[in-house]
């Protein structure tokens, strides 16, 4: 089970003259356990349970740092990650200094320039369902699922985006990495995203607003690198 759950995203690289391979994997977790797709799993000590049907997000400006220097950067290219799909997204993270890297950073969401410059192709094609049609702007990330609590079911649908003040939802993440092997595993702690969510946001967040901002703040804190 675990092996399968590690697959979600692979940011591959090729070995190019002395440069080293690295994969960046995103693994959705509830506390210490990887989360299976579309299956109810228990949350906390109560009888509550959760089923996640989709978690997708845009990512760009991935950088590897070594002692304050950027040793590798993905550039402005955007990636659309579907945490529960097995389709790999490939990117060359080749750097001869990979072993010395101590931090990784990236931005979640879509660059604001791309939000105002018309139609784009590739992962930014609105066909991927990550663009609001009635109001210009990309959905930075989507979380969809169902929570069962005291026998009651609640559908959760959070489509978080917004690039205009005061509702900007892009968030930068910078994480310390331990020793790098042939992969960097980044956990997404869904327990943090959902912790006591009812007191903060409604079950449906579908446009740029204060709730979307709160969710963006939370999502930013969910990423964690597994230290090796």
């Amino acid at each position, binding site marked *: 089970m675990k092996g399968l759950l590690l697959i979600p995203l692979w940011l591959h690289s090729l070995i190019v003259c002395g440069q080293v391979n690295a994969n960046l994997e995103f693994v959705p977790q509830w506390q210490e356990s990887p989360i299976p797709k579309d299956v109810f799993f228990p949350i906390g000590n109560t009888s509550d349970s959760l089923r996640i049907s989709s978690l997708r997000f845009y990512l760009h400006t991935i950088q590897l740092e070594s002692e304050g220097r950027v040793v590798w950067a993905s550039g402005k290219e955007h990636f659309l990650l579907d945490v529960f799909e097995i389709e790999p997204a490939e990117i060359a993270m080749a750097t001869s200094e990979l072993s010395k890297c101590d931090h990784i950073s990236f931005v979640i969401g879509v660059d604001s320039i791309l939000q105002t410059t018309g139609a784009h192709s590739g992962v930014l*094609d609105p066909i991927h*369902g990550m*663009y*609001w049609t*009635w*109001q210009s702007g990309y959905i930075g990330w989507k979380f969809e699922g169902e929570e069962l609590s005291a026998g009651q079911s609640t559908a959760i649908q959070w489509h978080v985006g917004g690039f205009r003040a005061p509702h900007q939802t892009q968030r930068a993440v910078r994480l310390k990495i331990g020793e790098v092997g042939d992969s960097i595993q980044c956990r997404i702690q869904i327990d943090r995203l959902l912790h006591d969510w009812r007191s903060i946001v409604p079950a449906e967040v579908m446009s740029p607003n204060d709730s979307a901002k709160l969710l963006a703040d939370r999502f930013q804190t969910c990423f964690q690198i597994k230290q090796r």
Partner: protein
Amino acid sequence: MQQQENCIQLGRALFYDPILSRDSTISCASCHSSYVAFTHVDHKVSHGIDDRIGRRNAPALMNLAWSKTFMWDGAINHLDMQPLAPITHALEMDEQLPHVLSKLQASRMYRQLFSEVFGDSLVTTERMLKSIAAFLITLESNRSKYDAVQRGEALFSEQEERGYQLFKQQCNACHTEPLFTNGEFANNGIAVHEDDFGRGEITGIASDTGLFKVPTLRNIYYSRPYMHDGRMARLSDVMLHYGLASFETNASAEMKRMRPMKDEQRIDLTAFLLTLSDSAFVFEKKHQYPFKLYEKFGVQH
């Protein structure tokens, strides 16, 4: 240049083709008819696609290259992205867009037109959107009597001239020449209804509640009914609204400076507004239903 022309023709074919709607019954032109400056003739609010669109009056389409935002509330920030709103039925485009693209890909006419423009026949969202935008950009209206006067080719009548002077005092701050809009959002003193808070719905800023995009007044004669929800049927209703100069309390600052207008003044002002009618634009063949093209490919609607 030929490529640009082909792109415009592709956009025109798409604009008039009901293939863009789920059940292939409604085209862009169903709500934006060239004969009424691309608005929905005699419809208070346009219907046919979804509730969101159904609460608003279809704006006239012209001089879009100069617009910074689209829709009454400025929800759309780029002309390319505009067609997505009517094309997709739900609030978000889950299966609709792939379906439209596959219908286009299956059409011999579109495969040919796409390859003439893009070098191969692949239909993509980006290509489709950019083509429609290319056509929309060509909808330029600048051949009205007003334009002729500005170019020194014609003269206003005395009445039109009086109306023009009044216009400059009372209206030009928002309906700014020569586009007859300043592209901003304002409240012109009509009552705000519960079901539509305009700009505020988009920005989430309380003070934007009840603001709507200042519409152009070019071709205003053709584009009745008026206001975002089509609540005013005739130009004379609009003139009465402004002429009484008694506005809702949350009206924009410019409205507070407006002076009441007597009957004759309202008539003068109307006479001026009629000089903004551009019949050459309204009857422009290049903007109309592309019979020849559809005929060539045996496409029937």
